[in-house]
């Protein structure tokens, strides 16, 4: 089992969510977050005073998946998150030791 984490542009969430659902993904966790990478921040101007905003709003998607499904899920995210512009985000995959469904106590792949 793997945990797929994607940091994306907030405006891309709807497209990605729809595409993942169409690809058969059963669940995901989405959170609003902030951060910076190569995009750095942007400048805002208030009454002539410039402020650099270096933490930019992003959306984090987390998906637990069987090993065999990981590549196709990552591909769906990449295709739908890409605008070609700096700041499109990142996707990474980590191994997961165990997963338990709270309601039933099912473990491993059955819990996904």
């Amino acid at each position, binding site marked *: 089992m793997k945990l797929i984490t994607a940091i994306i542009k907030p405006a891309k969430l709807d497209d990605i969510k729809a595409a993942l659902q169409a690809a058969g993904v059963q669940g995901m966790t989405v959170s609003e977050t902030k951060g910076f990478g190569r995009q750095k921040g942007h400048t805002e101007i*208030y*009454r*002539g005073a410039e402020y650099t905003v270096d933490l930019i709003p992003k959306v984090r998607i987390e998906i637990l998946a069987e090993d065999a499904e990981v590549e196709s899920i990552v591909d769906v995210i990449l295709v739908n998150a890409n605008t070609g512009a700096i700041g499109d985000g990142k996707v990474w995959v980590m191994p997961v030791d165990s997963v338990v469904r709270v309601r039933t106590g099912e473990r491993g792949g059955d819990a996904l």
Partner: protein
Amino acid sequence: MINSGDTAWVLASGALVLFMTPGLAIFYGGMVRAKSVLNMMMMSFAAIGVTTIIWVLYGYSLAFGPDSGHGLIGNFSQVGLTKTINETVGATGHHIPALAFAMFQLTFAIVTVALVSGAIADRAKYGSWVLFVGVWITLVYIPVAHWAFASQHGHGGWIVDRLGALDFAGGTVVEINSGCAALALAIVLGKRNGFRRDPMRPHNMPLVLLGAGMLWFGWFGFNAGSALSAGNLAATAMINTQVATAAAAMSWVVYEKIREGKSTTLGVASGAIAGAVAITPACGFVTPLGALAIGLIAGPLASFAVSRKYKLGYDDSLDVVGVHGIGGILGMLSIGFLATTAANKAGGLGLINHGSLSLLSKQFIAIVATAVFSFTMTYIIARVISKTIGFRVYHEEELEGLDTTFHAESAYDLTGSGNR
């Protein structure tokens, strides 16, 4: 014989002007950081409470009671507003109840001291502010209101009755007064922690725009109500207010578009306020085209003035000096150039209407007297409060935010990260 039409308009205007102070609370509240927005708004509401109590007890009497000698202050004959009941004020044929006038003028006192609070956002002890409101209304606002507003057949306040400077709705009493007091307070309290280092951007621009709209709306009572009658003069003041406010909103954003490449919502809101400020003393003395000129100048001038605080090094947090102080001075001086008796027979003639330099020099004297008195007195009051009960919060309280420190509340339940 009470004129019911005039009375109705002044009563309505009192309500309109009172509405400006909650509007100011929202305008200012949106401009500060989320951790101190309630404190910012509370300063305005405290101004309503404290000023009203003073006004009924002795404020109206000292400001608008019969002059006690040299045009400097009224007397105690109207204490408690008891004898004011059933009295009338106003010109022949335009009598209104003195209590309608007292209520109308009360709302001016309230909004003036509330304006000052913008200079000391995020760092003043709440209790000290409440005390400051009472002392400042008593020692600064009431005298200046008497000087410029207490017209008593030539024997009232010295600016209006003896000097003969023209100030229709409070360029001196409200705008220059609040602007100079704001400068003194900003100097005494010092800069916010992290001034110029940390981003202190407005936490809610829609609130700022809503507040600006409330102020704009209330300003019609402020300016057109100052005619104290419902006729030509009120209509002139009203259209002039609209023209200058709208023109300054546009000229500010055009100026910043040229300077920084973007037109901002804070710019359009600030420009509107700067225009309304600048037309305040002039609205009953100039033509609509004169008002247009004043508004077009007010936007860029106030915008430029605001930017100077970084060079001069004082933290007038919400730009009371640049918008109200400089805007008020512009408005007062503009009368010396643009005034015309076509707009108001009781007014004057500015230089472009073949008037003499004497009007401009009277305007100048009124400006300087108000500015020097307001700055000096406010500086002394603020220093005394600082040295006794303290005016500035502790460092940790400032970092934590004043909402939890003083009011045990927070404006928003935000679980997101980022600058609170």
